[in-house]
């Protein structure tokens, strides 16, 4: 059987983000060994979104980049 090393979502075919999720979930229940802090829920969430649903998100944000930049400026001004 053949495949590509990198998936269309820029993920590793052989150790994709889903697999990291499973490992992370299991490591919550069973001691899996030395992971030096592990993957972290937030990081995994961001990568899950980026790899699996990144295409429509980036399609949208790239087209409205300037508007997003304006929003970001406002947010920074308000929070700072």
């Amino acid at each position, binding site marked *: 059987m053949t495949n590509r090393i990198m998936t269309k979502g*820029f993920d*590793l*075919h052989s150790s994709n983000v889903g697999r990291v999720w499973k490992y992370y979930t299991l490591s919550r229940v069973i001691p*899996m060994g030395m992971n030096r802090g*592990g993957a972290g829920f937030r*990081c995994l969430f961001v990568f899950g979104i980026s790899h699996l649903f990144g295409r429509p998100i980036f399609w949208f*944000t*790239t087209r409205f980049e300037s508007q997003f930049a304006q929003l970001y400026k406002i947010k920074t001004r308000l929070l700072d």
Partner: protein
Amino acid sequence: MNIPKHYSLPALIRKGKEIAQTVDTVTFDLFDTLLIRRIHDPDMVKLPVAKYIADLAVSKGFDWNQEQVQHLRDTIEAHHRLETGKKFDDHEACYPEYMKEMLAEVFGTDANDALFDTIADYEVAMENSMLVPRGKFIDWLRELRAQGKQILIVSDIYLPAIYLKRFVEHAGFLDLVDDVISSADSFLAKASGNAFPLVQERYSIDPKRWLHVGDNPVSDGLRPLEFGIQALVLHDASEKRRKSIMKRLVAYGLGRPFWRGRALQQLMQPLEYENVERDDLYIEGYSFLGPLIGSFVQEVAERSMKLDIGKIFFLSREGWTFKKYWENSIPHLFPGKDLPETEYLYVSRMALAGASCAHKGLSQTKADIVFLPSGNSDFLDVCRIFSLDPKPFALHLNRHELTEKTVFSHLHKGYLQENVIRFKELIADDAFQDEVKRQTRPANDALMRYLEDVGFFDHTDVALVDIGWLGTIQRFFHEAISHRSDCPACHGLLFGVTRGIPFPTTAGNSIEGLIYDKDHFDFAASSLLYARDLFEEACRAPHPTLNGYGLKNDGGYELIFRQVDDAIGRAEKEQDVNYAPLQQGVFDSAKSYAAASALLGYSLDDYKPWINFLLVSKLAFAKTREICTIRHTHHLDDFHGSKKVANEQKLAPNTLWNRSAFALRFSPLLRLRIFLRHMRDRLNE
């Protein structure tokens, strides 16, 4: 002014092809247009260069580190840009000018053109390892070329055009372009728009019949439009997504070491037309075994430099893969360091067992090692492993009421405890030991000649690199050489160490498992024990195993290899063919590993959490399809005798990797049950 932006490459090329019919010249931006970088931040490529310069400076006796060199480079470059800004509209810098100034500051009078060229070559090599041509653009370039269009590359960058041409040449499309123009040569950049009149004048181009393509809305969009050139700007959503993932991996890796190994693998990933369909075994070699072996070999290099090792000996047969990986990665990873010499050493447990008895005889521990595998049971097995002729031992055996076929293994029928006691008495018998030494002496002499030939005794410290497990090879090897006064200190750097039999560690002879060592309780890494044979077969050299060292009549030596025309030899060849894509994947990953690891600046300690994840998820929680694809069909172990045990089925380790596809698919919670049992076994060890 409305800048024509396109949000995907096919959309831009479609529009470009329409416009191209009305123009004679098409100019392209280079970076992020024709070439993309694997890394999100181009400045990260400068970091390994700074490390290289710092290493060179230290080797010449100057006191510099990577951070200081990088800071100096940034300061001088910024100063050059400021000076240029006083005379030109653009704040450009020219690489050779500011780098030569920086080198003069670091190396003083030792700085010269040759040194600059060496460093520039390394920087170009690092850039090349990170640059990938965009496949669809190159296809379009070919079409434009065929239509007879003039094609130019115009870039705003600190590198002069001669370096850009090297990138284009490496990417394989220099023949498709007429010329490459860099702002570093003229300080007239696209950013101010001054590059366009320069190009128009130099190549006599009519702006109306000129199309420019790039990724920057100002430099590649607004400025050419102001000059009357048609322009297309690429705002590639897909590229932004890829870079965003890379950026997050690097950033998250700073706080969470788990992602460092993942960032390494992301950098190693093939892009564009490199990412073609591959055999599943190739993918496992590239994405699973490659990073494991790469980080192991990198750690071997770092330890060797720390221990001041004179020469590294990669032990056959798994050392063949490690050495090949070393050659393709380590010189690129440590360009400024004095690396130890390397040599592939032909050894095997069978070949060394006999030679190890020539001076110290057959010890009880060595005899015990014989009866670890269930296939060995009697004195004939001892003779087979230690290359002894059993006939001259008949008298000695008789004296202790033993025969050649007396059973010494508790796994076999006919085993009696008193026979083991008699066997111990036999080992303590001086006459028996004298016969052992007499028979094994020629093999030891031949081994000494071989080792002298490869310069083994020319160093005070040597590293022995092997796949590992019990460390039997190094145990036998050191016993064979320890009688010599010039015997070097042997540092065994092994992939995994199980220490089933305690290793006789001394200052002059030690072993350490770098990926897994039973002595450093690393539970996740112990998943390696699920499929040790897989690693042995994946790394095994394509030559037969060594049976012994022969002493020739003229005093020379010969290496005696196992025959290859019997059933086992044919099975090994079949296994070689089966694993060829896997090994190819491993070797192809070496250069990518070196480039990625050099750029990230990490080592095994940083990658370990991700490596542990790989080991657990790929070995202990492997998918059925993966096990069926990866597991080997044949594995030769001459050490293991041919005697059958009545309850062999029960003795065979019942691991995940020897289960049927049916059991793997349908046995409930199989992986979890085996993993918990594995955990219990490790805790009870």
